[in-house]
């Protein structure tokens, strides 16, 4: 093995965040206690669709300890609507319903009392008179010409529809030996963090500042909150030092925060809302993509896939936030790792009377990968080719980079074949086949699953202008400020909160790497939004690239300043200096040197020793634009979506008990390449966790609704989360293809595992079912779904 070029990057290091968590000293939003704080309980709509005829709050208000009962109508009059993400101005969304409710669980009134228990008591006394209205719950029914409209003013249940054609699709299909069409569906699930959403707000009449502590992971949250509350941006101070108890995309509690902020200002008292679990599941607006794919692949006898037609219909629920854009990110990896020459992509977001959808880990990429990979398996089965050989045949080669895909994104680097081969080797693939066959011989159903997939990373916002020409966002920058104080110790500031990604560890490792200073001596703080530089938050697997790049950029300015001070004082040119461990010396003249402490002291105290024109002190910022970003889409909808492209390949062995139809995952290997890993333990941790999420999506998790629109999975008894009894031991095999676009060659990995595991597990289940002539093309593959598929295969058609 070649020696690492890095001092600290890529090495095992304890995450600096961990100690506070294992000692019970985390600082979560629900831990905020402010003198005089009031508490909210919510009144939610029992109906998926209803007219609010009247709300009688008199009994609730009469209860001792109750301060106010807020209705949706009052809130609407005093706040601005939240943005729908696409150009649909009639699809208005406020934190609480007024006039009509559009999903069961939608907030109708908020009771504020001295304690949460009192607020809940009073909430039971709020009398709402509803007139039930027809509800449209099935997305396909919502598309019918006479469908009930969720937002009649919008005129349609379709909130977004665009048909992209990239390359000679018709021509390619005409030249293909075969085409194969299939439908797969991805069930509504979410990452469901164990911490529900919590937010506390405090308004100060004198300063005119609203302080906000929220379990938030959201780009431009302070700006959006200020806008909705009709406040100036500098009147909202979001405290990003709140520890966020898991998010993986979904902690976008803008409506919660607007509600609480409004009440805190109205009452002049600190106010807090902590969702209970049912509020979170039903009314927290954090359910994920809910998609039906109709796909046709065109391919040759030898297995070469030439073209793909994909139609995706996504049920976003009753209101829109970021959700339609989750059809947009997959545009940046629409062909996966394959050399598919042309693509037709018909993307449609439809509204129903269900809980609204929000961003979930991967931002729509996991469902699309599942749809593509299922098709690859189907082509292999159709042509009677080996699934692995078929993938190899179609994969982009390691010498083909940068590789421009039909939809306009250039993949930066990769070696897909090697990563897949490493995964197969680690799984002892030949032995795995024998193990599968032995299980089959012993009466079990058993199957092996394979998947490969791209992990676009570096989180840009190119899907915004792609899906809404009125939105000309072309930067999604992130920033870091680094300072060296008079004592010589280093502090870095970031401008967003963290929900488990160990950003303090990542930034201190990067700063330490550049300055040659011990990372554990470097403090990293989360500045509040009025003290912070701009950030777009840890979405889109972006922080190793963007925050890491910004931290490196700011630190290099500091280092350069130290070198300039040294050159000036040692009387030599910059090129004659060596920087080692923070100290500077003249090349080949070791006696001519200045120590770290001496250089820091000059910067802070000795203006007379500074080069002319240099600012005193040691503090630098760097704001980094997403590499490869900055461009608007072309007229035919081609755009560079994300800059960097990690890759993963999964190999899975499952068995299915033929009696109970329960799936057991017996072996799990993931080959993974995210370039240079800054913190390998963190990358591996997120990958393990992503695989567990994917296992849940593949086998267990679903926000099921009744035909009337009632959520049937509002507790963890019905919405099943994988425990250590379901998640197997997982082997991760690393590979490193550095990105040419980033400081250290790093790529992103926050969505790793989750993007490829549902496809792999589904592939394994279908391999197992194939011996019975059965198949399943929808998730989750629950025991009941498997039982049904086996019975359908048995009974004559």
């Amino acid at each position, binding site marked *: 093995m070649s020696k690492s070029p890095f001092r600290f990057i890529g090495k095992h290091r304890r995450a600096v965040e961990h100690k506070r968590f294992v000692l019970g000293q985390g600082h979560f939003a629900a831990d905020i206690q402010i003198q005089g704080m009031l508490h909210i309980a919510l009144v939610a709509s029992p109906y998926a669709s209803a007219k609010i005829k009247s709300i009688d709050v008199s009994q609730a208000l009469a*209860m001792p300890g109750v301060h106010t009962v807020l209705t949706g109508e009052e809130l609407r009059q005093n706040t601005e609507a939240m943005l729908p993400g696409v150009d649909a101005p009639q699809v208005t969304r406020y934190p609480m319903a007024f006039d009509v409710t559009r999903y069961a669980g939608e907030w109708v009134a908020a009771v504020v009392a001295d304690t949460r228990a009192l607020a809940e008591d009073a909430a039971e006394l709020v009398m709402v008179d509803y007139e039930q209205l027809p509800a449209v719950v099935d997305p396909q029914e919502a598309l019918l010409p006479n469908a009930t409209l969720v937002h009649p003013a919008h005129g349609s249940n379709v909130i977004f529809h665009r048909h992209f054609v990239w390359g000679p699709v018709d021509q390619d299909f005409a030249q293909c030996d075969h085409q194969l069409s299939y439908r797969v569906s991805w069930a509504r699930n979410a990452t469901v963090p*164990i911490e529900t959403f919590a937010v506390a707000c405090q308004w100060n009449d004198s300063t005119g500042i609203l302080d906000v502590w929220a379990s938030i992971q959201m780009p431009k949250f302070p700006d959006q909150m200020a806008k909705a509350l009709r406040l100036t941006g500098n009147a909202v101070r979001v405290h990003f030092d709140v520890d966020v108890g898991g998010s993986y995309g979904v902690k976008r509690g803008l409506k919660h925060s607007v509600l609480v902020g409004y009440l805190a200002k109205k009452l002049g008292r600190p106010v807090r809302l902590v969702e209970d*679990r049912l509020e979170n599941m039903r009314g927290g607006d954090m359910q994920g993509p809910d998609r039906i794919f109709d796909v046709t692949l065109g391919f040759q006898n030898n297995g070469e896939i030439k073209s793909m037609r994909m139609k995706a219909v996504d049920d976003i629920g009753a209101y829109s936030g970021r959700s339609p854009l989750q059809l947009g990110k997959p545009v940046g990896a629409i062909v996966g790792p394959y050399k598919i020459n042309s693509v037709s992509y018909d993307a449609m977001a439809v509204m129903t009377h269900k809980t609204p959808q929000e961003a979930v880990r991967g931002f729509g990429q996991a469902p699309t990968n599942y749809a593509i990979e299922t098709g690859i398996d189907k082509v292999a089965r159709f042509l009677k080719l080996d699934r692995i050989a078929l993938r190899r045949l179609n994969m982009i080669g390691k010498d083909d980079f940068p590789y421009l895909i039909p939809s306009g994104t250039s993949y930066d680097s990769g070696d897909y074949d090697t990563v897949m081969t490493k995964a197969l080797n680690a799984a002892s693939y030949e032995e795995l086949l024998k193990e599968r066959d032995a299980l089959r011989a012993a009466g079990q159903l058993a199957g092996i699953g394979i998947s490969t997939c791209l992990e676009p990373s570096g989180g840009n916002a190119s899907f915004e202008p792609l899906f809404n020409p009125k939105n000309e966002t072309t930067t999604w920058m992130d920033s870091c400020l680094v300072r060296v104080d008079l004592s010589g110790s280093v502090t870095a500031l970031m401008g967003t909160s963290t929900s488990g990604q160990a950003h303090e560890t990542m930034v201190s490792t990067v700063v330490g790497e550049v300055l040659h200073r011990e990372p554990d001596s470097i403090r990293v703080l989360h500045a509040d939004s009025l003290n912070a530089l701009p950030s777009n938050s840890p979405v889109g697997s972006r922080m190793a690239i963007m925050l890491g790049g910004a931290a490196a950029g700011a630190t290099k300015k500091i280092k350069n300043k130290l070198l300039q001070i040294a050159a000036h004082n040692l009387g030599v040119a910059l090129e004659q200096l060596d920087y080692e461990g923070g100290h500077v010396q003249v090349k080949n003249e070791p006696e001519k040197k200045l120590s770290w402490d001496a250089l820091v002291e000059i910067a802070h105290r000795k203006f007379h020793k500074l080069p002319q024109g240099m600012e005193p002190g040691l503090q630098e910022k760097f704001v980094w634009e997403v590499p490869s970003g900055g461009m608007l889409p072309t007229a035919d909808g081609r755009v560079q979506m994300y800059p960097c492209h990690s890759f993963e390949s999964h190999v899975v062995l499952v068995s299915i008990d033929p009696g109970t139809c329960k799936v057991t995952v017996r072996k799990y290997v993931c080959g993974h390449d995210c370039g240079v890993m800054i913190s390998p333990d963190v990358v591996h941790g997120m990958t393990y966790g992503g695989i567990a999420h994917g296992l849940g999506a593949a086998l267990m998790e679903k926000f099921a609704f009744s035909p009337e629109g009632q959520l049937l999975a509002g507790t963890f008894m019905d919405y099943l989360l994988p*425990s*250590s009894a379901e998640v197997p031991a997982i082997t991760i095999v690393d590979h490193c293809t550095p990105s040419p676009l980033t400081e250290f060659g790093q790529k992103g990995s926050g969505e790793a595992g989750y993007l490829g595991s549902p496809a792999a597990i589904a592939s394994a289940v279908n391999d197992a079912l194939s011996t019975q002539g059965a198949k399943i093309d929808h998730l989750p593959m629950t025991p009941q779904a498997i039982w049904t598929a086996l019975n359908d295969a048995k009974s004559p058609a």
Partner: protein
Amino acid sequence: MTASNTLLKSIQIQVNGTHQHRLVEPRTSLVDFIRDELGLTGTHVGCEHGVCGACTVLLNDEPVRSCCMFAVQADEMRVTTVEGLAPERGVMTKIQDAFCEKHALQCGYCTPGMLIACHALVADNPHPTEEQVRDAISSNICRCTGYQQIVDAVMYATQAEGK
């Protein structure tokens, strides 16, 4: 329906070695009592219906869901929360130390409950197998780690201990 003093119950609980004598509403859950009355916010609330295990504490040395019992039911009992695991301030137990070493946590929200589950396991079985660890922590849901590094941490702590 409102809390009035006549409805309050007097309870005596020993929490992390400190005797507490408090008046509580009978409907106050043990976890709300620990967090809101005692200010020990290390114990977390996840589902409030006994599935996720985030609120797990030791009650007379047994792991229990503090969301699924009332504070009055813990009268005259001993409670240990995550804040009380370490032998002294700022010092970590071997399991806590191993969680840091093996990256057995990410967001840290399930961690206190998970640590209680692991300490309860190791108290009964100082040298568990990997399978026994997986079985023991199946009581607690973690959405970040996929459990792998938690298992690694407990194995690391307990294997090193025996040598």
